[in-house]
């Protein structure tokens, strides 16, 4: 069932997607990029603590995939979650406040970089156990079927997660029960410092779907239009036929695994990273829009200026937000308070 998206998606998408959407996708990729560059800065200044995994280089996957969803559709993602969150509709200021560990953060400062949650926009969390969220996403899809809604759930994870049992258990149930779930593997080739060749018995991630007779597709994850095309078709299929899909988006991360790593480390060469950077998904996409006459250099600068301003505002919002109070320590352990446990204020 595996298919691969061919270059005609470019003309197809450029032709059928409203200009506003096309430009909005560029704006979101830029915002994601600027936001994370600022994260790196804030991490160095120790305004952001803990682990901080940047998504730079992979923006086309989140932006392309999420451009196909309705606002009420649900997404799950791993700890590399800042860009998914913002693109799904989280307020960048509240995301930054979360990274700062402040009370106005999307998770009230309790989650941090790896655990961004925003129920209102359909963000069902960044999750930090590799593959641990795949059953949860499958469960939300199960609930859509149970409640007979046509809501779709998108579940993002890295290629290293496909070797986890939870992945296989989930795909088996999703296929068996025809659950409206789309699994998007962001294959950036490395799980921390282990290349896929050193961790997976087969290279072709999408092929794993055949074990469950599930539809699958491999897509160029550096190409936002290809991702939009591919995920868009999967979304249609899952809404109409309840057929889950496994999508492998081949991409690359330009930064280290997390902020505590160097960009390349011992597991990949500097040359490889530099070569991949030539495929920058934002530059490539801008080039296409330019060629199609949809934007010019000034238009790009304008979008970039807006992105930078949004990030500056986010920083100011985060800085101004208070730390959680000591009282919040025991809040939200239980929905129904008892003993020292209480609920947080709305």
């Amino acid at each position: 069932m595996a298919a691969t998206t061919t270059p005609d998606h470019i003309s197809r998408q450029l032709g059928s997607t409203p200009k506003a959407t096309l430009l909005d996708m560029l704006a979101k990729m830029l915002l994601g990029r600027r936001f994370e560059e600022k994260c790196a800065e804030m991490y160095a200044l120790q305004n952001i603590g803990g682990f901080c995994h940047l998504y730079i280089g992979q923006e086309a996957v989140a932006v392309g995939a999420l451009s196909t969803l309705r606002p009420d559709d649900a997404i799950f993602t791993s700890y590399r979650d800042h860009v998914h969150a913002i693109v799904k509709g989280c307020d960048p200021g509240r995301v930054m406040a979360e990274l700062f560990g402040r009370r106005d953060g999307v998770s009230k400062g309790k989650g941090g970089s790896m655990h961004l949650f925003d129920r209102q926009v359909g963000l069902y969390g960044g999750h930090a156990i590799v593959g641990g969220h795949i059953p949860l996403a499958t469960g939300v899809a199960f609930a859509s079927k149970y409640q007979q809604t046509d809501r779709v759930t998108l579940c993002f994870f890295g290629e290293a997660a496909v070797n986890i049992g939870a992945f296989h258990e989930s795909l088996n149930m999703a296929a068996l029960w025809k659950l409206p779930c789309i699994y998007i593997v962001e294959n950036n080739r490395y799980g921390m410092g282990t290349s896929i060749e050193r961790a997976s018995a087969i290279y072709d991630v999408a092929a794993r779907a055949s074990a469950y007779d599930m539809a699958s597709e491999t897509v160029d994850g550096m190409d936002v239009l290809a991702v939009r095309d591919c995920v868009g078709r999967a979304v249609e299929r899952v809404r109409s036929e309840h057929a889950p899909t496994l999508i492998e988006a081949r991409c690359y991360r330009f930064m280290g695994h997390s902020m505590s790593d160097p960009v390349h480390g011992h597991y990949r060469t500097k040359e490889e990273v530099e070569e991949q950077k030539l495929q920058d998904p934002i530059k490539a996409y801008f080039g296409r829009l330019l060629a199609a006459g949809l934007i010019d250099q000034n238009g790009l600068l304008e979008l970039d200026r807006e992105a930078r301003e949004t990030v500056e505002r986010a920083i100011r919002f985060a800085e101004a937000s208070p730390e959680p109070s000591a009282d919040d320590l025991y809040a939200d352990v239980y929905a129904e308070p008892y003993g020292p446990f209480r609920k947080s204020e709305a």
Partner: protein
Amino acid sequence: MPLITYRDALNQALREELRRDPNVFLMGEEVGVYQGAYKVSKDLLQEFGERRIIDTPITEEGFTGVGIGAAMVGLRPVIEMMTWNFSLLAMDQIINGAAKLLYMSGGQFSIPIVVRGPGGAAHQLAAQHSQSIESWYAHVPGLKVVAPSTPYDAKGLLKSAIRDNDPVIFFEGETLYGSKGEVPAEEYTIPIGVADIKRQGTDVTLVAWSKMVMVAMKAAEQLAAEGISCEIVDPRSLRPFDNAPILASIAKTNRCVIVEEGWPYAGLGAQIAYQIQQSAFDDLDAPVTRVTGADVPMPYARNLEHLAMPSPASVVAAVREVLYRS
């Protein structure tokens, strides 16, 4: 009042809650067509159909996670573990997922799920099928843990657990399923976090839950013949834990024996003993004593299995010890 089995009491609770709330569903291995490995879900498939009584593949981590995900959007899953031994495969979902989602989402996602099934040793099932791991779960903030000892408690507590908005770990006693007790025909619930005095007495307080209540009862009968009066307090909920009735009982008896099927090291009994010495030190006439399972994987041989489990005789011996009569 009708006299019914523990198994049927649980079945009634499930049936009533499935009828009451369309968001409740039961999921697990063999819960439907086979009617439950221990027949707790007898006839439920017939009444509620495949949409709500869901047979799963053998995939404890997967289906527990599916339940937790479904609970994130307001369904109220009851997940059956064929036995708690297999829940070890689902612990990531329960502990890293269910117990933490509300907290790390800043209060956005409560998880109204019940994970239930038989725990503890049965008869010669050996090491991988005879474990009392309730203290593992009771250790975790975000979980509630319940372990009823009678059909009455089982029904009332399961109904409360299903209505509860937090994840509830519900331990049933594998060898209690056939035990009988009075269960009213009319609707009732038992609040989670409230202990019950299972036997009134004046000389010593026995704290026991689940199957160990039976063991404590037998010991108490034997001791009564010698003129020693035991009070038995069953916490019923292991988290939240209702300390007050235990303290009140100790104020009366001045002595305490904790009876626990699980292992001694870092077990729940250690926590209870700590709570007692913190709050009732001045009431104690003897150190608190624990009777626990032996600190070994459960052996298969019948004689060794008996040696590894708390027995009425070992409880009697412990009582004599705290009364300085050994």
